[in-house]
């Protein structure tokens, strides 16, 4: 059973990247995170939402859903799009991998999410959209 829950839906527009990370950060503050934990979450959410805008919807129209659930001292975020999906998730998660080098993408998006969050699960299939689920432990046994 969760203690608190929220769900936001917004258009796939780059200006909503800052909106999404600000909303996620604001929701997290009820767990009294440190400044570093707050930055970790804001950065990871920014990565997931940016991926949805650029890769999921390829800068075209679409809706992105951000959900967050608090259970005890942990917060779980889900960023979902109904875009093109990822054909090979394990390849996409490798550092420096990008399908869009012409856009000067660093290929570090998933690496940042994995480094800054305690758990990252990616559910995706070609044509079936992508859901990135990320857990951050604020109190209790956090990642060393």
């Amino acid at each position, binding site marked *: 059973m969760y203690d608190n829950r929220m769900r936001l839906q917004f258009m796939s527009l780059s*200006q909503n990247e800052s909106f999404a990370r600000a909303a996620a950060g604001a929701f997290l503050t009820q767990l009294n995170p440190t400044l570093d934990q707050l930055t970790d979450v804001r*950065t990871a959410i*920014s*990565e997931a939402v*940016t991926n949805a805008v650029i890769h999921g919807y390829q800068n075209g129209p679409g809706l992105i859903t951000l959900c967050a659930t608090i259970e005890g001292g942990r917060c779980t975020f889900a960023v979902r799009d109904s875009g093109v999906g990822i054909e090979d998730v394990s390849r996409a998660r490798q550092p420096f991998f990008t399908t869009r080098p012409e856009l*000067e993408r*660093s290929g570090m998006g998933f*690496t*940042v999410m994995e480094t800054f969050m305690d758990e990252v699960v990616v559910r995706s299939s070609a044509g079936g959209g992508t859901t990135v689920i990320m857990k951050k432990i604020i109190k209790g046994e956090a990642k060393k």
Partner: protein
Amino acid sequence: MRIQASRKGRRVLARLSGELDHHGAAEIRAKLNALIADHTVSELVLDMGNVTFMDSAGLGVILGRYRDLSRRGGRLILTCVPGDIDRLFEMYGMYSLAGCGRGMLDATDTI
């Protein structure tokens, strides 16, 4: 995101302020490119002290300018880097790239 810049000889100093993400990336890329368009510029110093947020898209923009400069034998210096942004540069291995380094502003650096 705002940029204030000054030039001294072959060196351009640019002070970035605000959030550096995918949304602002194209504009910052264009502004930084304009600052180093003159090929006699061999060093770009980025003062990151007032950058309040950066993600991997922001990293991509800085990496792109590093590549442009290093192709012509120039250098990129990153200075006053806040801790959370430094972590991203470290993660990428930015400081171990040839022609890229951490630097300090000297007393004559003014914008």
